[in-house]
């Protein structure tokens, strides 16, 4: 019986530890201390997973995700990148950044029904 419980619990613990910022529907803002004024508020995405990553703390993730412009906002769904909104030369995100991401989230949600 104990063996069975261990066998059942093992995959759970492995999967729990395998959590990442790309799970489910996630909105991630990549930024830096010098671009904090250009960041958008992630409050409109409160119903989903939201993350604010700073290059000084999560540099490895920036490299892995090939972040070239700061700030950048990326929408992920179950590990896949759905859309990437990057800032322009003035270091500011497009005005429609929030709406663009919301539109894509809307499509993702709609596909579940």
């Amino acid at each position, binding site marked *: 019986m104990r063996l069975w419980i261990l066998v059942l619990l093992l995959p759970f613990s492995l*999967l*729990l530890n395998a*959590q990442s910022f790309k799970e*489910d529907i996630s909105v991630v803002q990549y930024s830096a201390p010098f671009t904090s004024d250009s960041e958008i508020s992630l409050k409109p995405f409160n119903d989903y997973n939201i993350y604010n990553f700073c290059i000084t703390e999560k540099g490895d993730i920036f490299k892995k995700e090939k972040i070239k412009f700061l700030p950048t906002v990326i929408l992920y769904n*179950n590990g896949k990148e759905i859309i990437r909104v990057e800032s322009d030369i003035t270091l500011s995100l497009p005005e429609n950044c929030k709406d663009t991401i919301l539109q894509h989230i809307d499509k993702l*949600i709609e596909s*579940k029904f």
Partner: protein
Amino acid sequence: MKKLLTLIFLFLSFNVQGQFFKDLYKELFKYSTIYVAGDIKNSYQEPVKDYFVRTNPDGGLYDIPEVVDGTEYHEFDYRYGIGIRKLARFDYEIKDKHYYDGSEKNTGLSAPTSAVKGLEYVFHFEKERERGEMFENHRYFLRHTGKHHIVKLESRAKGNVDFKYKSAEIRGRVPIGKKLSFSAGAIYRSHQKPYGYNPIEIWLNETDENGNAVNPWYTLGFDYGYDDHFVTIEYQGSTLYDWYWTDPDGNVVAHTDLEFRENVFTDLMNRYNQEIWSELDAFGVLSPIIGMDFIHYKDKFWLHFYANYLPPFHKYVQGDEDFSYLNRNNWGVGGLMDGSEHEQWDDYQAGIIMGWKLNKSIGLFIEGEYTKFWDSEIYNSSIGLNVTLR
């Protein structure tokens, strides 16, 4: 000035109302589907035809008889219904068809948590004809899921199996990370059947002070209009006797007591039980509930495990408690045993859905759900190993 203020006020009021209705529509109806659907199919056909012979009406017993097809034929089966649904599928669930028709079986209907937060519902009503009989079915389901709460209402009826079930539950929810959550609260459930209570057994086993049956078995036949008639047969110098039975219309239905008991009496027992059970109101029981949900989804591997446990602290709030599940083992000769105590029980439900695409060619899929509520055990499971040849 007054007019201007009134106009501004009205404008603002319309705007506020407009926003309110927009939000209301978004919460209630966005992503919902209204459908009308139906199907027609062949009814069940007996695998072997049933023939019998009838004596030729123009001849005698030894003339060529008439062969009659006694197989039961039914008109075609059909089903039509109407519904509205807003129920999200989990990422691993695939939409069966391009349209909804009310026959969908979503994990979201039984798992404690849902694929999306917010309001979800299914309101489906249908009529169906099966083997010539008409039935009405419905499923009404309403759930609101938040980060820290689950509220769920459900009513189901399936006419062809005489199944009726209602439930209402409210739970607090504690997410642990993004994949695991625990919940606890209270649930109300209804059940129709008085488990453990067998009226015919009690009726037949009732005895007087001398230990004789108060209700001899054959008196049930009299109660339903059947009658027995004494008959004697002279056979090889001996006199045999028995009773033959007639139905309320005077037709002979059994030539001996034994034949009556083995055939007609069995139906009468079931009829008696159904009549007594139908006099009882439905039962409603309030129980604590503890649940958990674990969901991991990736394209190549997904696992959804959920479980509900209802510990033995059930309280009946509807129906006659004497006939409730608390007394399922307390019925004896003559009725409820003196001094018997209520007996609590555990109910539980668990489900698992797992998919593992080992590579482009091989996939392993496991699905299963087990429910034990009262004396009812419902389980279904499937396993599939797919190998795609390339």
